[in-house]
C-alpha cells in the first residue's frame, strides 16, 4: 500500500507546489489523479518516484510510505529497486536506442538474464505484439502511440508492483488513447499492479479507475470512488464538459454563467 501523508513540496527552496496532499493507493487498485495544468499532479508522481530530487524539488513536510517503509528521502534508483516505476510524461524514451534496447534497459535492476528474456517475450506476446515487429527500429522515429507502448513496456520490464503513469493519453488520437487504456486495464487485471494515473482526459481515466482524486492549486480538493466522481456535479461540469441536465453544454448561448466550484466554498 502506498500512502502520502500530508506532503508539502517545494522546488528550489522557494516555489511551493504541493500544500498538503494526502492520498492512498491500495494494492492492485487503479487510482486516477485529475486536475488542471499546474495543479501539481506530476509533482505528486515525482515525489513518489524520487525524481523530484533530480529537479531540485524536496518533500519538506509530511511523508510517503510504501508498505510501511518511508521512501520520501530515498534516491530514485532505490525507489525503482523497491518496485515503483514511473512512466514519465511526454513519452520519454531513449530516442537513439532501438525498441528492444529501450525495453531491456527497463530490466536493468534484474540480475537474472534468463528471467529478463522471458519477461521480454511475455511483453511482446501479451501486451504489445506491434513492438515485436518494430523491435529493431530506432525508437525516436516511432509514431506517438508506438512510443507510448515502448515506454509502458519498459516500465513493465522491471516487474513493478506500483506503476505511476503520467498522462498516457498526451497528444494521442482518441482511438489510440482507447487502445492504450485497454492495455493499462489489462495489465492491472493480469498482474495486479497498483497504478496511479495522472490524466487530463478525465472521462477515460475515470472509466478504468476505482478511485479518483481531483487536484487544484497543489491541494486535493475532492476525492471519492470513481463512479461517485463521475456523478459529481462539479466534476461533470468542469472535467467532463457536461451541464447539470446531462446534455452536452451549449456554447450557443450568448453568455453562460459558470458554476462556482463548490469546493472553493
Amino acid at each position: 500500500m502506498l500512502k502520502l501523508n500530508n506532503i508539502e513540496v517545494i522546488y528550489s527552496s522557494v516555489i511551493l507546489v504541493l500544500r498538503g496532499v494526502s492520498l492512498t493507493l491500495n494494492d492492485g487498485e487503479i487510482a486516477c489523479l485529475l486536475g488542471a495544468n499546474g495543479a501539481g499532479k506530476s509533482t505528486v508522481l515525482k515525489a513518489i518516484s524520487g525524481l523530484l530530487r533530480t529537479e531540485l524539488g524536496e518533500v519538506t513536510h509530511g511523508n510517503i510510505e510504501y508498505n510501511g517503509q518511508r521512501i520520501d528521502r530515498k534516491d530514485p534508483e532505490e525507489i525503482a529497486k523497491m518496485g515503483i516505476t514511473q512512466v514519465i510524461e511526454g513519452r520519454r524514451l531513449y530516442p537513439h536506442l532501438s525498441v528492444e534496447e529501450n525495453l531491456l534497459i527497463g530490466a536493468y535492476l534484474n540480475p537474472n538474464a534468463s528471467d529478463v528474456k522471458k519477461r521480454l517475450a511475455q511483453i511482446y506476446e501479451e501486451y504489445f505484439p506491434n513492438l515485436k515487429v518494430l523491435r529493431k527500429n530506432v525508437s525516436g522515429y516511432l509514431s506517438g502511440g508506438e512510443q507510448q507502448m515502448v515506454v509502458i513496456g519498459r516500465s513493465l520490464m522491471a516487474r513493478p508492483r506500483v506503476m505511476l503513469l503520467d498522462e498516457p493519453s498526451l497528444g494521442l488520437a482518441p482511438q489510440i488513447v482507447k487502445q492504450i487504456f485497454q492495455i493499462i486495464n489489462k495489465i492491472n487485471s493480469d498482474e495486479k499492479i497498483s497504478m496511479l494515473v495522472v490524466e487530463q482526459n478525465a472521462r477515460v481515466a475515470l472509466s478504468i479507475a476505482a478511485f479518483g482524486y481531483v487536484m487544484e492549486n497543489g491541494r486535493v480538493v475532492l476525492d471519492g470512488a470513481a463512479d461517485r466522481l463521475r456523478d459529481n456535479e462539479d466534476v461533470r461540469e468542469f472535467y467532463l464538459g457536461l451541464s447539470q441536465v446531462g446534455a452536452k453544454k451549449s456554447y450557443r448561448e450568448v453568455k453562460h454563467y459558470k458554476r462556482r466550484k463548490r469546493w472553493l466554498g
Partner: protein
Amino acid sequence: MILQLAITGLMVGMVYALMALGIVVIYKCSSIFNFSHGAIVAFMCYLAWAFLVQLRLPFWTAALFLLVSAIVLGWIIQVGILRLLIGQPLLASLMVTLALMQVFGGIVTLVWPGPARFYPEIIPTGIFNVAGAVISYESLITLGVCVLAFLAFMYFFQSTKLGLAMRGTAEDHQLARSNGIRVVQMFTLAWIIAIITCSLGGVLIGNMHGVNYEPVSGLAMKALPAVMIGGMESVVGALVGGLLIGIFETIGAGFIDPLVGGGFADVFPYIAMIALIIFKPYGLFGYEKIERV
C-alpha cells in the same frame, strides 16, 4: 608507394581511432569534452616507462600495474573532482579538464625531466616486404592491438548490459535514474574506460616515437579532428574518423609534402575537418536531434 602509404595510414589511423574512442566515451555519457586527453596519454606513456625501466618489472606485470593505475586515476578524476561539479554549469567541468591537462603536463616534466626516453624492446622489431611495401612488425602489432581493443569495446557497448546502461545514460540522465541506473557510476566507468584507451595509446605511440611529452600528447590530440569528423557521440564514428585522419595524413605526407616542402601532413587533417564540418556539422555519425515531422 600507394600500398605503403595505405598500410601506414591504416596503422596510424587505428591509433587515432582508439584515442578518439576515449574522448567519445566521456562525451557521450557526461557531455564533457576531455581536453586533458592528450596529456593523460603522455602521462600513461611515461608511467609505463617507469614501470618497465625504472622499476624493472617484467612486461605483463607492468601491463597489469598500468591497468590498475588507469582504473585508479579514472576513479580519482571522477569521484574526487568531477562528481562535485554535477549540477554546476558544464563549463566548470570543461575548465577542470583544461586544468588537468596542465597538471599532467606539469607532473611529467617534474618527475621525468630531460630528453626523450625509449622503451626496451617490448615488441619484436624487424621488417618484411609485401609487394614492394615495407612493413614492420611493430606497425603490424600496433594495428592488431588497436583492432582488438576496438572490437572489445564495441562488444562491450553493443552487447553487454552495462554497455547498454552506459548508452542509456548518454541519452537521458533522469530517465536512466528512473530505471535504476546509477548515473554517477556510469560516469566513473566512462572515465576508467577512457583512461584505459589512453594507456594503450600512450604505450603504442611511445613505442613508435619515443617517450616524450610534446610529440606523444600532440599525436594523441589528433583524435580531436577524428572525433569531429566521426561525430561526437558515435563509437563507429571514432573508428571511421580516426582511419580517415590517418589516411589524410599519410596522403598529405606522401603526395603533397614533396610539393610544398614538408609540414602539410600536420595541417591536412584539420583542413579536412573544417571542410567536413561545414557540410555535416554533427560529423558523419554524430547524433542528429531526432525530430518527428
